[in-house]
């Protein structure tokens, strides 16, 4: 058995969108999402700029180029005027053209900027993908070099873009090497694998113990789908009870997974069971099912003496 490591992860950057994490090399156009400032493709140092900054620069340059073109066209029309009538037509027509041109540009600027960003990301997708593959390779090398913390921090960044099984499995592998603490910024929903994996379930157990908020719908779907495999594991029942208890965090989960929760009612801690009873008590009569009946029965037999349970049903 491998020794677990006590680690402190690098602070996770907060961005509204994943593409804001991308940085591009000004020299070779390579991409990366990692933290170092050396381009893996051309070896340049400190040449990275965020892709959003690059897009903003494009959004500044392109309109200027267009404006110069428009002004040049008007000046050419004025210069080519042979008579006074032509000159007047060129000046009036040119002024009207420039006025409408700048008005149009001002009015549609937000749409044009967004479109340019979209086009930029479409055109650069192959380069971004190559950059991410190179970053992934680096993370794999860290794993091979027994540096799971560094590998995980890299995989966490890459995972914002590449969501395949190979990335998830490597993340699970790394996370399994750490002591899980409450102050850690943990992920669970993002690494739910496509098939049953004991190492994922063990990590899930550790993670949910310190943070119940990690249990969301995809996690519950996974646990419900593989509940018999989990039950067969050592501490399987504890894991399932913990997840069932965490599912009580939201009424929507109780309504969605009543058949799962009802099987672990007997094992739920008092505080969790009390929360469930409160949720059940507020359920309209038409929606009450087996879970409601079992809660009512258990509240009566086990907590009949407890004042907090009095009058709930």
């Amino acid at each position: 058995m491998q020794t677990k490591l006590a680690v402190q992860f690098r602070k996770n950057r907060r961005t509204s969108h994943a593409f804001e994490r991308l940085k591009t090399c000004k020299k070779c156009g390579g991409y990366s999402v990692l933290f170092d400032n050396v381009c893996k493709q051309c070896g340049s140092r400190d040449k990275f700029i965020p892709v959003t900054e690059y897009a903003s620069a494009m959004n500044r340059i392109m309109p200027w180029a267009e404006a110069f073109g428009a002004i040049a066209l008007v000046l050419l029309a004025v210069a080519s005027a042979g008579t006074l009538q032509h000159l007047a037509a060129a000046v009036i027509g040119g002024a009207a053209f420039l006025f409408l041109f700048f008005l149009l540009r001002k009015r549609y600027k937000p749409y044009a900027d967004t479109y340019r960003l979209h086009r930029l990301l479409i055109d650069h997708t192959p380069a971004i993908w190559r950059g991410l593959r190179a970053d992934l390779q680096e993370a794999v090398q860290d794993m091979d070099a027994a540096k799971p913390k560094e590998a995980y921090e890299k995989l966490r960044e890459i995972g914002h873009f590449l969501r395949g099984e190979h990335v998830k499995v490597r993340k699970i592998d790394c996370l399994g090497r750490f002591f899980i603490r409450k102050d850690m910024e943990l992920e669970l929903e993002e690494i739910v694998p496509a098939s049953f994996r004991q190492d994922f379930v063990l990590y899930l157990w550790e993670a949910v113990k310190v943070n119940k908020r990690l249990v969301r719908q995809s996690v519950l779907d996974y646990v419900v789908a593989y509940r018999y495999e989990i039950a067969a594991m050592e501490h399987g029942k504890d894991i399932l009870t913990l997840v069932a208890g965490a599912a009580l965090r939201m009424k929507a989960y109780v309504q969605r997974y009543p058949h799962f929760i009802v099987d672990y009612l007997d094992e739920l801690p008092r505080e969790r069971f009390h929360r469930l009873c409160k949720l059940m008590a507020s359920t309209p009569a038409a929606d009450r099912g087996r879970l409601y009946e079992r809660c009512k029965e258990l509240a009566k037999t086990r907590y009949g003496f407890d004042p907090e349970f009095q009058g709930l049903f």
Partner: protein
Amino acid sequence: MITYGLLIVAAIYLLAKWVFYHAYKKKALTRSQIDSALVDRLNMAEGSHAD
């Protein structure tokens, strides 16, 4: 005549510009949609190169 020709070119350019801008507005994507589209393209590329 060249002056008029250039002014006609300017008018056509303006019209084309308006058509393009209008098209951008019509299919305007939010930044979240741009982000999801990028992630989808990358994962498709990843899937097709899976070893």
